[in-house]
């Protein structure tokens, strides 16, 4: 672990992106303190204004402060992104451990189910699930979570297959360790590295999907601010107040870029074969 820490600290991209992501998380957590106004409060006399001392990034069509909405939007994006990935990691890890360790028909069955989930374009499957369950924050998290389960199942299964016949696992078996102990205490700690890489890449994907669902009006419901929803609302006024589109786009791009670059950097650190040339 200490070599990991050393490599991590000497990797400029990894350090820069983790600082950026930490700042974003801090912004999300401290949203009520940082936001200058209530994100849903309408200042009717200040509709679609440009930036000013009171409204740093201007206001939207209802006179709501854009900066406050973007700050609260960070909260929504990160909460949905992280929760959805936690759902996928939990189920994906469980299925992957079981499939990889037990093999045979259990493996065959689990992996065929995953193949079926893989047979749908991501956004379409998420849309279909939201169509059935209805829009809203919880259903958005579940839909994105379910869509990403196969990626984690495959990642963990692959890692388990390469580990399960190693000597230390056999010796655990030889001293009579239970299957549960072997799976969760012997094998699981060794699949955390690929899980970490996959998770940071999946969070950016989850944020993208959430914003797309909200853009289509099927994700986070108004008046709660979400970046995708803000861009969708702003389309009608784009020539009058381009800032309403541009600021949420920048916020979203920076967040997703940071997640993607962080994921790439961690992969480079953990897996020298993957080092980008």
């Amino acid at each position, binding site marked *: 672990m200490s070599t990991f820490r050393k490599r991590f600290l000497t990797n400029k991209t990894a350090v820069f992106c983790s600082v950026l992501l930490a700042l974003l998380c801090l912004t999300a957590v401290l949203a009520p303190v940082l936001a200058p106004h209530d994100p849903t409060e309408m200042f009717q006399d200040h509709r679609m204004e440009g930036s000013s001392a009171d409204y740093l990034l201007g206001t939207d069509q209802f006179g709501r402060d854009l900066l406050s909405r973007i700050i609260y939007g960070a909260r929504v994006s990160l909460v949905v992104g992280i929760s959805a990935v936690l759902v996928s990691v939990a189920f994906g890890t469980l299925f992957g451990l079981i499939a990889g360790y037990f093999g045979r028909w259990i493996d065959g069955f689990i992996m*065929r*189910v995953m*193949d*079926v*989930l893989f*047979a*749908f*374009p*991501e*956004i*379409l499957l998420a*849309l*279909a*699930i*939201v*169509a*059935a*369950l*209805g829009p809203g924050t919880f259903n958005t998290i579940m839909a994105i979570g379910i869509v990403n389960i196969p990626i984690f199942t495959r990642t963990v299964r692959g890692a388990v297959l390469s580990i399960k016949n190693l000597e230390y696992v056999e010796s655990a078996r030889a001293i009579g360790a239970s299957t549960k102990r072997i799976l969760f205490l012997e094998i699981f700690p060794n699949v955390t590295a690929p899980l970490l890489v996959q998770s940071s890449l999946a969070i*950016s994907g989850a944020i*993208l999907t959430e*914003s*797309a669902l909200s*853009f*289509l*009006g*099927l994700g986070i419901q108004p008046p709660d601010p979400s970046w*995708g929803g803000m*861009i*969708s609302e*702003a*389309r009608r006024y*784009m*020539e009058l107040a*381009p800032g309403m*589109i*541009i600021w949420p*786009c920048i916020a*979203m*791009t920076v967040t*997703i*870029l940071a997640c*993607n*670059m962080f994921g790439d950097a961690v992969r480079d650190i953990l897996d020298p074969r993957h080092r*980008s*040339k």
Partner: protein
Amino acid sequence: MGSYLLKRVASLIPILFGISVLVFTILHLVPGDPASIMLGTNATPEAIAALNKSMGLDQPLLSQYMSWITGMLQGNFGVSVHTGEDILPQILKRFAITLQLTVLGVLIGWALAIPFGILSAIRAHSKTDIVVRVATLLGISVPNFAIGTLLLLGFSLYFGWFPPIDVVSFWEDPVEAFKVFILPATTMGIVVAAGVMRMTRSAFLETMDKDFIRTARAKGNSQWTIVMGHAFRNSSIPIVTIAGMQIGYLLGGSVIVEQLFSIPGLGQYILEGIYQRDYPVVQGGVLFVALVFVLVNLLIDLIYTWIDPRIKY
């Protein structure tokens, strides 16, 4: 090859079965009574009972699935609850539009990605390379609806130009169709380009390190011959893989792009189905896209054997 094709097609059967079960389940995940949700709050009990009967929703689940899947296999996708029209002809009509959009998007994406990807690999670590890599990262990180919205904003603010509203196909009026499709296809193309460019660069970097390239260089071949004649085909497997995945992504992503640019393609049809709670439309549309996606993947597998004859199944 023939036996491989048979095996590969046979392996699709459980997947197709799984897809059909999943799509069938969508309707039954709906909380409450699907018929009354589809008809809305003003529906009379008689109308609800009639819809339940016509869609077979009063039957046991297994027989519902059996009659649904039998209908699908015979090309009967049912009728729209909202308009009463047959669903399959609508799907085919709208898929023709989505297909034109997707093909143009893919062409734009590849035209951007492959030359710049190669350039960035053969001039690794140069300024060109850095610009290409930053552009790639941005392309992966900006959502397609943001790219589309910004393109619309840019063209309307600076050029005072909007794409025409009436959608025509390329065989009716190629010039007008080009005007209709160019912005949405560019939106798709930028996202495609980012993924393909990344893959092209890393595939070429790997190939250019190989011994046969050194031999080709030692024989005094020009850079052009080495890249196009020797490296290109040998780098193309991962590029084709990612390109195939991108086509699937585009079929899904078309939902957003079509909605943004008001293009009446298959994506918009599915979305209208979702907004109007017209579940047979949603089921038919999603099933159709999944089938196309599976077939595209099969095609990609077959293309491998053509690119690299060493691959034998």
